[in-house]
């Protein structure tokens, strides 16, 4: 099936549209990483089995007779409610579906077009029949994630049917490379990977280099803990990203594109491989694409477990087969990137924005979001929030709207404490920041950054000192070791934070933390090193009283820091059975049988064995 020219592509698209419309009903079973973990593969098989028994119903894509289309879609983003099943055209969304629910869904929703009430999403006593009405979705603006969950992620025809590759068609036949670059610049598309650098400017710089061998690289090494936007795009709508890369290739005159995907995303790698194979077979990748003389190929490189490879120069080094270490700049990636040639390097979400800018125009794009940061941003909303999942909102949406309107508020109605944004390179936003508009510039003013878009909600039971230690532990582990400030500085900062959570911190520790933090921020070689201290500095600024409690009073009010706890035996509940004393590994508990026992705090190592073993609940943990 080789599409050799524009006419053939148009015909192919018409066929695909008709084929997609042909089924009377479509059952879309979510096959993202989250729902697969919940057993959605079995649900898909069950539906196939049920449909096969049905007379006059075919499940084959493109079958001529009335039939039910059963599809494996990409991630819907509502991961906590998975496995999810969507029924079209009624748009019913079923949550937490089990294999045994399939026959009922088939009977009710396919044969009789009625919803299965008990599987609908419910909040505050209201049941929501259709996906579009659920507040979690209703309050989002899904543009980049538009197709995720709505088309078969493994079928290129469905992507074509919903208008896929029209942007590629448009640039190849109607626009010069310069016009493409201008359109992207005009749209003011800013890099979604963290820095927010102008994409159009990057492309322009690559396009004007003397060297004619150039590369397009996609950063799919989404290493920030708590972020999975790019994973969902790669898994749920892989062709959109490929299309964006092809357009970039055309705009800057590159013939080869590389996608660097982290090894922790095996499903994304498989879906991308499949999508590339489909595009090659259709003639949309390879030589002389659509007869225009444009050649472009895309290759996949799997990461090997180094967070630092998310940094541009480390990533290109890794593709070259070197240690993934950042280098000093200049020369910049646009001048000497991959194989020392001019390189366009953007992340997954950035490329996924490109086709719609080409299709709808820069002016339309600028009408969404804020003036300085047009468009939308996908965020991974996780942690202590009722509705966790993947969301997309216009740039400039307030934090309150995200946490309360879309996220449904804090889990178990515990008071809100903070949102950690931007992962190990970001900072925290507190209650007073709830009205802040999330865009590149507003956050910069607060010394935080959007980063790749992880939002981890923390409630009053979270210890911010422990969180800072957690991030520092992460960065220290992932430091590549090339420059001294990052290699040694993060180690020292981690040592100090470990002391503080162990109750050994002093006021001097806090001062040293700040000094080290500033020194690392000012002197580290790469972006990851420069931002390594931000979580600590940010918590020190916003939650200083918590640090003071740990340092001066040696207590952790949230009860997270094990070493600052005291285990005590309540004399009124203790029956003197001696079970705790027998289980204590350090013989810290003493007493006479049938009389209350006592824990010697000097010896106690706070392992909690006594608490686990007490049959009367007499052992309590106090902070």
């Amino acid at each position, binding site marked *: 099936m080789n599409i050799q020219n524009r006419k053939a592509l148009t015909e192919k698209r018409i066929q695909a549209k008709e084929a997609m419309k042909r089924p009377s009903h479509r059952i879309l079973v979510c096959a993202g990483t989250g729902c697969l973990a919940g057993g959605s593969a079995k649900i898909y098989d069950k539906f196939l089995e049920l449909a096969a028994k049905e007379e006059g119903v075919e499940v084959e894509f493109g079958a001529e007779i009335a039939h039910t289309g059963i599809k494996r879609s990409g991630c819907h983003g509502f991961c906590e409610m998975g496995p999810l099943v969507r029924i079209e055209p009624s748009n019913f969304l079923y949550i937490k579906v089990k294999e045994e629910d399939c026959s009922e869904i088939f009977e009710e929703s396919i044969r009789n077009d009625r919803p299965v009430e008990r599987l609908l999403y419910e909040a505050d006593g209201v049941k929501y029949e259709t996906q579009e009405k659920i507040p979690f979705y209703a309050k989002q603006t899904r543009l980049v994630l538009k197709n995720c969950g709505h088309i078969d992620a493994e079928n290129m025809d469905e992507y074509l049917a919903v208008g896929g590759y029209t942007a590629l068609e448009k640039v190849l036949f109607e626009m010069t490379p310069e016009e493409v670059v201008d359109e992207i610049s005009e749209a003011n598309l800013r890099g979604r990977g963290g820095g927010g650098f102008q994409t159009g400017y990057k492309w322009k710089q690559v396009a004007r280099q003397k060297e004619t061998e150039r590369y397009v690289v996609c950063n799919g090494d989404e290493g920030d803990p708590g972020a999975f936007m790019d994973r969902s795009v790669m898994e749920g709508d892989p062709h959109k990203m490929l299309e964006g890369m092809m357009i970039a290739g055309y705009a800057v005159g590159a013939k080869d594109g590389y996608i660097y995907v982290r090894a922790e995303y095996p499903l994304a790698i498989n879906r991308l491989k499949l999508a590339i194979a489909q595009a090659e077979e259709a003639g949309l990748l390879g030589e002389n694409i659509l007869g225009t003389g444009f050649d472009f190929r895309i290759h996949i490189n799997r990461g090997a477990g180094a967070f630092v490879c998310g940094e541009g120069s480390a990533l290109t080094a890794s593709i*070259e087969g070197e240690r993934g270490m950042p280098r000093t700049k200049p020369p910049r990636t646009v001048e000497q990137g991959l194989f020392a040639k001019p390189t366009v390097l953007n992340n997954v979400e950035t490329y996924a924005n490109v086709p719609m800018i080409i299709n709808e125009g820069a002016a339309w794009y600028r009408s969404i979001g804020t003036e300085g940061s047009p468009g939308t941003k996908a965020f991974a909303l996780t942690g202590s929030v009722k509705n966790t999942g993947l969301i997309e909102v216009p740039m400039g949406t307030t934090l309150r709207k995200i946490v309360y309107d879309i996220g449904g508020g804090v889990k178990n109605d515990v008071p809100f404490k903070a949102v950690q944004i931007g992962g190990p390179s970001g900072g925290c936003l507190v209650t007073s920041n709830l009205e802040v508009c999330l865009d590149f510039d507003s956050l910069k003013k607060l010394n935080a950054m959007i980063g790749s878009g992880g939002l981890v909600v923390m409630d009053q039971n979270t210890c911010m000192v422990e969180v800072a230690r957690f991030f520092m532990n992460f960065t220290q582990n992932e430091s590549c070791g090339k420059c001294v400030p990052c290699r040694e500085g993060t180690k020292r900062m981690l040592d100090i934070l470990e002391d503080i959570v162990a109750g050994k911190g002093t006021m001097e520790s806090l001062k040293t933390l700040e000094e080290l933090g500033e020194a690392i921020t000012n002197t580290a070689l790469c972006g990851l090193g420069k931002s390594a201290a931000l979580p600590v500095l940010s918590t020190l600024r916003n939650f200083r009283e918590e640090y003071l409690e740990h340092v001066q009073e040696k207590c952790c009010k949230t009860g997270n820091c094990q070493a600052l706890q005291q285990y005590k035996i309540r004399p009124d509940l203790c029956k003197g059975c001696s079970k705790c004393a027998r289980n204590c590994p350090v013989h810290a508990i003493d007493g006479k049988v049938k009389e209350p026992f006592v824990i010697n705090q000097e010896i106690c190592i706070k392992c909690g064995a006594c608490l686990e073993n007490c049959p009367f609940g007499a052992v309590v943990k106090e902070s």
Partner: protein
Amino acid sequence: MLEQSYYDKADEIISQHGTEQRFLIPIIQDIQSYYRYLPPDLLSYVAKCLGINEAKAYSVATFYENFSFEAKGKYVIRVCDGTACHVRKSTAILDQIYKETGLGKGKHTTDDMLFTLETVSCLGACGLAPVLTVNDVVHAAMTPDKVHELFEELKGAEGQ
């Protein structure tokens, strides 16, 4: 010295990629996924085939966390300790696995070569935290009790 079959396998994998340095990482990734570890002798062999010196190949292989010079167990368990999982108590999951397997901070593979335990910084399944994977299959919303059940099942399948 390894058996000849190892070198034959390496030749086969190299021929699928090519002999430029940029193929070093994909080649040793394939070797590792086949043998579940990267035999050091094979790394030296690959270096020779690619015309790069041994020190270079080692510097690359030791840089990335995914490469292991030691054989891994039949079940590779990866516990996510990313932010979302950490906030939702992944430490308790890890402790339970220590209990089930007798592994600990310094010991990653059981003596019977059944289990290898690794922690990873994020598996990208944050909506289902805390998560772990067993040979790349995701187990979601784990609790210490569910860990216990999982191990009962895995050990049961091994007839232990």
